[in-house]
């Protein structure tokens, strides 16, 4: 039997209410052996300064990325990672993290590439847990290794590569650029106050609509309620269930947040995350770029 869904009222309006848990719900289940809580952060040391009791750490760079190629770990690497964190194929895996759950969403998305069935996000993430004065510990969790099968990663359903994006533009698919307006317009190649991450060209993928990821979030880190999300994504930019949608940002973390919103909160069935994002596109030779005040170059057919 699986772990029941959090009955929290706000979640019931979402397309997939089973993908979110509230801090209250989680606080009562920290000892449940069917649940593994995983922290995924931007700041690699934050887990060690204090985390939810029993939570393991899954780091986007050290754990989920391949050490050589710019790609994710393979089936064997993923199985080893899950096993070492005490996660079996039937485990309910609850992610939370800093920075509005960017990396928690990213880790959840990577686990979805490997088809892990029960992945959930803690609404409000680390920030809400701490703001509510809930317990933290510096004791590093040392789970007993679990058996995890080797499952091939499926990169076709929810992940997009550069060539997919090129084909998507031609097919007039929908693109959502979730970066800040200054990055979208080409004034900046990186987030305000963030280090320059090495994109040679600035602007956006032609035809992309700009909806900064943060519009889906409240200031306390939780997701906005469903009607507000419908207003932004369905009314304002006109997405609908029949659309093929690709979201991107700079390296794929902020667009994981939007991927989660579109897929699990609004229920759009065909949403992919382009994890290569602007760091790839803004460096690639002869891919089309749109920038205000310039025609698209090279021109689209």
């Amino acid at each position, binding site marked *: 039997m699986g772990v029941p869904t959090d009955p929290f009222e706000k979640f019931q309006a979402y397309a997939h209410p089973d993908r979110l848990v509230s801090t209250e719900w989680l606080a009562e289940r920290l000892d449940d052996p069917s649940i593994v809580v995983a922290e995924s952060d*931007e*700041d*690699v*040391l*934050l887990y*060690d*300064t204090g985390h939810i009791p029993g939570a393991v750490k899954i*780091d986007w*760079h*050290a754990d989920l990325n391949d*050490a050589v190629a710019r790609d994710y770990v393979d089936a064997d690497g993923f199985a080893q990672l899950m096993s070492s964190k005490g996660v079996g194929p039937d485990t309910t895996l609850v992610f939370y993290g*800093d920075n509005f759950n960017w990396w928690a969403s990213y880790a959840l998305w990577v686990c979805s590439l490997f088809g892990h069935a029960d992945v959930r996000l803690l609404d409000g993430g680390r920030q809400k847990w701490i703001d509510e004065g809930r317990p933290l510990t510096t004791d590093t969790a040392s789970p007993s290794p679990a058996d995890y099968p080797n499952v091939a990663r499926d990169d076709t359903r929810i992940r997009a590569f550069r060539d997919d994006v090129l084909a998507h533009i031609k097919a007039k698919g929908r693109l959502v650029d979730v970066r800040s307006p200054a990055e979208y317009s080409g004034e900046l190649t990186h987030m305000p*106050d*963030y*280090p*320059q*991450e*090495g994109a040679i060209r600035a602007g956006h993928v032609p035809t992309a609509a700009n909806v900064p990821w943060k519009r889906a979030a409240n200031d306390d880190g939780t997701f906005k309620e469903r009607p507000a999300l419908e207003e932004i994504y369905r009314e304002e930019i006109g997405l609908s269930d029949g659309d093929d949608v690709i979201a991107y940002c700079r390296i794929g973390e902020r667009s994981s947040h939007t991927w989660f919103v579109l897929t699990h909160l609004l229920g759009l069935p065909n949403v992919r995350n382009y994890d290569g994002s602007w760091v790839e596109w803004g460096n690639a030779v002869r891919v089309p770029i749109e920038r205000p005040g310039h025609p698209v170059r090279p021109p689209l057919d």
Partner: protein
Amino acid sequence: MPEERLEEIVDLFREAPRELRLQLLLDYANGLPELPAHLVADHDAMEQVRECQTPFFVAAEREGDGYLLYFDAPPEAPTTRGYAGVLARGLSGAGADEILGTPSDFFLRMGLQELISPLRLRGMGAILARVKRIVVEQENAAAG
């Protein structure tokens, strides 16, 4: 003179087992000295390093033959605090020649690349670059 030589700290990291390197960085984050009273009272005297993701401030004050380095970063940014802690222990009190002679990529030899993405690791270089700039400005001012 600094409490430790920066080169010794680099060696300490490089020779530590992989799983202990982050713990070491956390130790340096926790060991970052508190700001002295005069900078708490006059925080505007510190310069903000905009290349860092979190609010981060630095000051370098000449004392005798060396420069005392001060850093301020919030507790929710332990990695940035760790970078600052390494520089505070390894360079605060050093003379201008030693600070300006520190290779700008010294941190690449600490063995942190497997643990921290290279782009994030550059924050350490950005902090050192800012320290060097402040020292150059003060040396120029002192030389009249």
